[in-house]
């Protein structure tokens, strides 16, 4: 068997979208299952991209270019996985909190989560506590991830957690918070389950929680 999975990894890291598409098709033609392409090609590639970002070897643009390449492969294997009714690793709903119209960090978290094998529901920006509550009821996610860039809007993270508690949903989900002004101390003060300093860490910490369950 050809070493397509290693080549897919390398092409994702280097951000070569069309190469990833070609290699994904070639791997499937060669007999690899869609799950294997995802879990041994695309997911580990984005994990390496996340590590490189954390180490300062990659910058946001490079992460976005790699994510686009990853989607090149993901968009091919996703319909096949759905046909086979393969369950995702976990489901996350992601949104920038009420009053916050910034989406770069939130979008990166969505990309890295999808690249990490998660099913992602991107709620968008300016999401009120009530909208988060409704989304949890509708999508039944494992994770609720909230992003904020302003100290004024950070307050809505706490309000969203409170709203989830009031609706009896708090214990059904793990809650993550992130964004430039957000700190571990703040996350602790509002009762979030975890804080991530960047999109890659959001995935590694979500993974750690899943594996510990």
């Amino acid at each position, binding site marked *: 068997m050809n070493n397509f999975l290693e080549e897919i990894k390398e092409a994702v890291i280097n*951000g070569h979208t069309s190469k990833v598409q070609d290699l994904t098709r070639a791997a499937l033609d060669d007999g690899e299952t869609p799950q294997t392409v995802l879990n041994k090609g695309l997911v580990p590639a984005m994990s390496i991209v996340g590590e490189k*970002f*954390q180490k*300062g070897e*990659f*910058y*946001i*643009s*490079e992460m*976005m*270019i790699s994510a*686009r390449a990853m989607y090149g492969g993901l968009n091919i294997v996703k319909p096949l996985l759905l046909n086979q009714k393969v369950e995702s690793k976990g489901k996350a709903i992601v949104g920038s909190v009420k*009053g916050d*119209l*910034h989406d*770069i960090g939130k*979008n990166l978290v969505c990309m890295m989560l999808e690249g990490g094998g998660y099913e992602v529901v991107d709620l968008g920006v*300016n999401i009120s506590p009530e909208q988060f509550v409704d989304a949890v009821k509708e999508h039944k996610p494992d994770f609720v991830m909230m992003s904020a860039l*302003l*100290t*004024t809007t950070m307050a809505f993270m706490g309000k969203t957690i409170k709203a989830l508690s009031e609706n009896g949903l708090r214990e059904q989900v793990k809650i993550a918070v992130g964004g*430039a*002004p957000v*700190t571990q101390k703040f996350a602790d003060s509002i009762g979030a389950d975890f804080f991530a*300093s*960047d999109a890659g860490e959001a995935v590694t910490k979500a993974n750690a929680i899943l594996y510990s369950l």
Partner: protein
Amino acid sequence: MDMTPRERVITALRRGEPDQIPWMENDIEEALQEQIMGSNNFTPAQLCEKLGLSAFGAHFPMGQVADGQGLVTKETYQESYYHPNKLTFDFFPPWIAQMGSDPETGRTYIEKGLLISDEALKLFDEFLPDPNHPARYEKVAEWLKEYRGEYAVFARIRLGAASTIESMGLEEFSYAQVDNPELINKVCRRFAEWSAEVIDHLNEMDFDFFWANDDLAGNHGPFMSPKVFRELLLPNMRIAAERIKKPWIFHSDGNLFPIMEDLLSLGMTAVHPIQPGAMDLGKMKKEFGSRVGIVGNIDLDYTLTLGTEEEVETEVHERIQTAGPGGGYIVSSANSLTDYCKLENVLAMSRAIKKYGKYPLEG
């Protein structure tokens, strides 16, 4: 004899030791200005006097409803650029982008950058005002004469990087690095050439210095790799920077250390805001303080917005002890004074700078 506020700023910008560490802000949101002054009708000098600021620029409500920079659309921008109806010292090009506005707060934001193809470059002609139109310069010259007093006054400009990133959108800007790098080059060059023409006019005016706002970094580092920065943005930013004939401050949020040497090659007098969540002030002072002035580092993520007055005082004291020795330091928030800063914390910052900022500094 005591220095004037202007002398303090110029001395500190040139890495000298003034009699007192100055304080200045890149921007003070108008709603906060009103809170500080208890009215929307005051002069820049009155605001400086009240807080102990040594310089002013940006914009002021002057008896009108407080707002930010207003909704920037191509239909309205050129007219308001040529004939500003509020006191302003800003000379920014517009974002070439689809803008949105939050109905609750009135804050404007960029929904989508529009410069995403070679075809879209024609939008420059629709959006950019004529940099040689005399009206704005004439009006601002009158305001300078009327309001400057003994304070340093700055004009805010851009060198092209932030305009490029925002007008393409970060995602398209990223993809273009592999798909069409020449598009980034063309976009940045056009913005830089526009600013260069503006700068030629500003050099002849009575400004003391310029403040170039070019956000290009996040907490981890620049948005793009140093290589991309060096090849596609820096040479164009240099087109504008080389035209500057006054002291100037470079501003970008985020961690600038990975590209600091490249930035310094532009020849700025000082760097702002040394965001504490992203850059260490002690490292900045130690490694670069002999080559460039330092402005900023009072935290906006927690201290000024959520902290106590005591925490503000402690932080100001600590920053002055770190960056003040030998001069070359100007206190400032680590971005701007936003309308969500606590008023009492802004006043505590004012008191602490006066208390701890006198040279010779106490141990």
